C-alpha cells in the first residue's frame, strides 16, 4: 500500500458532506483555490493507520454530472480529467438514506467514469423515523460496491470508512449504464476527438463540452450531426435507465415498517415558517434580532480587544526608543490595525447567524418565500442567499451565486450584491452612528444604534433591488429561467461545523484585511508624516521660533498639537486631500475625509484605520481607541467655527459608504466569476456614481 491515497468526497447538496469532511479531517485542512479558477478547494488529511494517510478533496455538492450551474461544473472538472494531480484513487460517496433514490443517481454517473466508489449511507436515523430500513448487504450486492452506514453528525462509523479506504481489495470499478446502445462509430469518433478511452466518459465530456467548455465544440457537433445523435434525448434516456437500475437496488434492499406517512417536524414547521403572513413576519424579526445582537452581544469582547491594543500601543511606545520606528509602529501600524480588529466580534456574530440559518435549513425557505419578490427585479429566490450573505462579505457571496443556473439572473445578482451593506461597512457605520446618537439611547426596549443600523442595511437592500430592475432592462443573455430547489429537512446545527466555519472566516478576515490595513497604514503614515521639503522645514522653523518666544498662555502641548496639524496639512497626504477637496466639497466632505476616501478604495474598513492614523498623527495626543477618535472628530470645526461633522455631513458620509464601490477584493472576484473586465468596470462606475449623487442629495436636504 502506498503512503498516501487521494479520496474525493462526493454527494448531493444537503447530504451531510461537510459534517463527514470535518469528522474525517478536523481542523487538519486547508482552503485554497483550484488552479486557474476562484473555486474554493477544500483539502483535508485523515490518518488511516500508522503508515497511511488519506488526502480528502471536498467536492461541491451536486445532483448530476451534467452540470447546470457553475458550482456543479467544478465537481465535474475534477472527476473527468485523469491526468489531473487531484484525480482521486477512489470516490467516497455520501448519500442521504432518507432520500436514497435521488442520491444514488450521481453515484452511478461517478462510477461510470471509471473510478472505484464506496458508499457511506448517512442519516439512517432520519429514514428510520419515517419507518424505512435498508439491508446494507443486499444494497451492497445490488450496487456491486461496499456500503457502510454512518452518522456524520455524531461521527459514528468513521472507523468503518477508514478501514474501507485502506482495504484495496474492496475498491471496485463498476458500470451501471450500458453505453453500447449508442452507435459504436459515434463513440469511436468521439473517443478520438476527446482523447478518452472510457466511452461513457468521452461521450459525457463531449456533451458538456458543447455547453460549457467550448473547445472542440465544432468537431463534436459535427460528429453528433453525422450520426443523428441528440444529446438532450440521450441524457433523458440515460437518466431514466439509471433510475431503473437504482429502483431495483432500492426495492430489493428496502424494508418499510409502517405504511402511513407521518407528517414530520419539517412539514409542521414549514406551515408556519412559509405562511403568507407569519412567514414574512418571522423572516423580518429574525433580521431585526441579528442587528440587535450585533450591537448588544459584541460590547464586552470589543472592550477586551480595545484594551489589548491600548496595552500593546503603550508597551511599544515605552520599550522602543523615540524616533521614526516608534512613531511608525504606534501611529501607523497599531493605530490602523486596532481600528479594524476591534470589529472582529461583530463580524463573527454576523457570520455565525448566517451559518446557523444556512445549517438548519432556513435559508432555503427564505429563497422560497422571496422568489416572487425577486422575480420582477431579474433575480430569483436563490439570489437571496448571496444577498443576505452579502451583509457579511460580498466576496464569498458572489461565489455563492454560482448555484443560480440562469446566466442573466446570476449576473444581475453578482452586480448588485456589493450594494448590500457588508461587515466592512460596519466599523464605518458604527463610528458615524455613534456621532449621531448617544450609545445609551433607547426606543422602548430597542437600542437606537441597532435600529439606525438596520435602516442602513435596508437602504442597501432597496438600492440593490432598484439597480437590479435597471440592469434587467440592459442585460441580455440566453438560457431558460427556472427556480427548482430542494427544501432540506430542518436539522439542529452541528456546533463543531459552526466553530470550524467561524474559525476559517475569522482568520481569513484578520489575515486578509490585516495585510491590506498594515500596508495602507504604513504608506499613509509616510505620506502624512512627510511632505515637500521646503514646506515642512518652514513649519518646523516657525514652531522652533514660537517655542523660544513662548508666553505662559500657550502650553507646549497645545503648541505641539498645532504644529502636527499644520504638518499634516503640508504633507503629501494633505496635498492630495486638498487636491480632491473641490470634488467632494459639495457632499460636505473636507480634505481629511478625502484622504480616507482614497485609502478606502483598498477596503472600506480602512476608513476607520485612516481616521485613527490621521487624527493620531495630526493630534499628537495618546490613545487610539474609537472613543477618542470619535471625540476628536466631533471636536473638528470648519472655517466658520461650526462643527465639521454636522448631521448633514455624517449622513452624507454614511450614504456614500453604503453605495460606493470601495473594495478591490470584490472587483477582482467579479472579474474572475464573469471572466471579463467589462462587469467589474460597469460595477465600479455605476456604484460610485450612485454614491456621489445620493450623497449630494442627502447633504443638500439636511444642511
Amino acid at each position, binding site marked *: 500500500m502506498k503512503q498516501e491515497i487521494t479520496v474525493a468526497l462526493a454527494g448531493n447538496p444537503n447530504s451531510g458532506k461537510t459534517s463527514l469532511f470535518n469528522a474525517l479531517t478536523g481542523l487538519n485542512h486547508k482552503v485554497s483555490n483550484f488552479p486557474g479558477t476562484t473555486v474554493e478547494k477544500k483539502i483535508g488529511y485523515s490518518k488511516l493507520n500508522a503508515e497511511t494517510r488519506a488526502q480528502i478533496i471536498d467536492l461541491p455538492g451536486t445532483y448530476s454530472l*451534467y452540470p447546470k450551474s457553475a458550482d456543479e461544473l467544478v465537481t465535474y472538472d475534477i472527476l473527468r480529467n485523469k491526468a489531473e494531480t487531484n484525480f482521486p484513487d477512489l470516490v467516497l460517496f455520501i448519500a442521504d438514506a*432518507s432520500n436514497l*433514490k435521488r442520491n444514488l443517481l450521481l453515484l452511478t454517473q461517478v462510477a461510470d467514469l471509471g473510478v472505484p466508489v464506496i458508499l457511506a449511507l448517512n442519516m439512517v436515523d432520519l429514514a428510520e423515523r419515517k419507518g424505512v430500513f435498508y439491508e446494507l448487504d443486499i444494497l451492497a450486492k445490488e450496487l456491486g460496491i461496499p456500503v457502510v452506514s454512518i452518522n456524520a453528525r455524531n461521527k459514528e462509523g468513521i472507523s468503518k470508512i477508514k478501514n474501507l479506504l485502506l482495504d484495496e481489495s474492496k475498491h471496485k470499478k463498476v458500470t451501471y449504464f450500458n453505453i453500447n446502445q449508442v452507435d459504436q462509430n459515434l463513440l469511436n469518433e468521439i473517443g478520438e476527438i476527446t482523447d478518452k478511452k472510457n466511452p461513457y466518459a468521452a461521450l459525457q465530456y463531449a456533451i458538456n463540452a458543447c455547453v460549457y467548455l467550448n473547445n472542440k465544440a465544432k468537431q463534436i457537433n459535427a460528429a453528433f450531426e453525422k450520426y443523428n445523435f441528440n444529446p*438532450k434525448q440521450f441524457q433523458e434516456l440515460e437518466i431514466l435507465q439509471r433510475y431503473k437500475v437504482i429502483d431495483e437496488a432500492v426495492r430489493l434492499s428496502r424494508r418499510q415498517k409502517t405504511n402511513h406517512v407521518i407528517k414530520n417536524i419539517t412539514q409542521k414547521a414549514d406551515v408556519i415558517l412559509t405562511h403568507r403572513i407569519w412567514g414574512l413576519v418571522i423572516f423580518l424579526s429574525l433580521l431585526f434580532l441579528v442587528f440587535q445582537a450585533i450591537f448588544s452581544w459584541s460590547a464586552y469582547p470589543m472592550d477586551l480587544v480595545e484594551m489589548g491594543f491600548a496595552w500593546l500601543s503603550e508597551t511599544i511606545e515605552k520599550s522602543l526608543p523615540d524616533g521614526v520606528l516608534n512613531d511608525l509602529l504606534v501611529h501607523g501600524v497599531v493605530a490602523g490595525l486596532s481600528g479594524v480588529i476591534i470589529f472582529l466580534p461583530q463580524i463573527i456574530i454576523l457570520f455565525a447567524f448566517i451559518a446557523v440559518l444556512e445549517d438548519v435549513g432556513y435559508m432555503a425557505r427564505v429563497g422560497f418565500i422571496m422568489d416572487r419578490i425577486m422575480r420582477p427585479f431579474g433575480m430569483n429566490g436563490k439570489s437571496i442567499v448571496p444577498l443576505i450573505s452579502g451583509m457579511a462579505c460580498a466576496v464569498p457571496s458572489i461565489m455563492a451565486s454560482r448555484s443560480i*443556473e440562469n446566466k442573466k439572473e446570476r449576473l444581475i445578482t453578482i452586480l448588485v450584491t456589493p450594494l448590500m451593506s457588508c461587515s466592512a461597512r460596519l466599523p464605518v457605520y458604527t463610528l458615524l452612528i455613534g456621532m449621531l446618537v448617544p450609545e445609551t439611547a433607547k426606543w422602548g426596549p430597542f437600542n437606537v444604534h441597532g435600529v439606525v443600523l438596520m435602516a442602513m442595511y435596508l437602504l442597501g437592500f432597496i438600492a440593490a433591488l432598484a439597480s437590479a430592475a435597471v440592469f434587467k432592462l440592459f442585460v441580455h443573455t440566453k438560457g431558460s429561467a*427556472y*427556480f*427548482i430547489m430542494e427544501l432540506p429537512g430542518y436539522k439542529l446545527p452541528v456546533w463543531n461545523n459552526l466553530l470550524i466555519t467561524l474559525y476559517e472566516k475569522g482568520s481569513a478576515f484578520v489575515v486578509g484585511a490585516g495585510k491590506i490595513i498594515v500596508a495602507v497604514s504604513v504608506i499613509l503614515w509616510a505620506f502624512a508624516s512627510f511632505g515637500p521639503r521646503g514646506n515642512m522645514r518652514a513649519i518646523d522653523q516657525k514652531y522652533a521660533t514660537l517655542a523660544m518666544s513662548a508666553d505662559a498662555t500657550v502650553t507646549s502641548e497645545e503648541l505641539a498639537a498645532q504644529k502636527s496639524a499644520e504638518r499634516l496639512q503640508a504633507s503629501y497626504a494633505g496635498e492630495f486631500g486638498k487636491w480632491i477637496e473641490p470634488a467632494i466639497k459639495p457632499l460636505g466632505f473636507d480634505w481629511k475625509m478625502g484622504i480616507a476616501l482614497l485609502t478606502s478604495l483598498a477596503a472600506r474598513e480602512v476608513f476607520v484605520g485612516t481616521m485613527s492614523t490621521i487624527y493620531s498623527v495630526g493630534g499628537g495626543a495618546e490613545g487610539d481607541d474609537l472613543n477618542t477618535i470619535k471625540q476628536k472628530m466631533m471636536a473638528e470645526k470648519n472655517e466658520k467655527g461650526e462643527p465639521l461633522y454636522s448631521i448633514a455631513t455624517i449622513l452624507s458620509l454614511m450614504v456614500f459608504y453604503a453605495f460606493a464601490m470601495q473594495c478591490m477584493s470584490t472587483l477582482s472576484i467579479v472579474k474572475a466569476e464573469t471572466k471579463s473586465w467589462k462587469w467589474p468596470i460597469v460595477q465600479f462606475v455605476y456604484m460610485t456614481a450612485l454614491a456621489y449623487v445620493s450623497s449630494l442629495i442627502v447633504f443638500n436636504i439636511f444642511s
Partner: protein
Amino acid sequence: MKLSELKFNQIATVQAVHGEELSLKLFEMGLLPGEEVELENIAPFGDPIAIRVGEYKMCLRLSDANCIDINVK
C-alpha cells in the same frame, strides 16, 4: 391535470414533463414519470409552490409546474 392545479391533501403521480431543459433538470432531481407528488406549501405571494417528490421536498414556480402532467390518485 397539471401539477400547478394540484390541491392540498391530494396525492398524484407524474405522467410527463414538457420542455427539454426543464425535464432534464426535473428528472435529475427525481421528479420523473411514475413518481408520487403532493402539494405541501404555497409561498406568501401565491407562487412558487413546495411539493413532496417521493421522499423529499422541493419547490418550483407555477409556470414550471404548469409543464408537468399529473394523475390524481
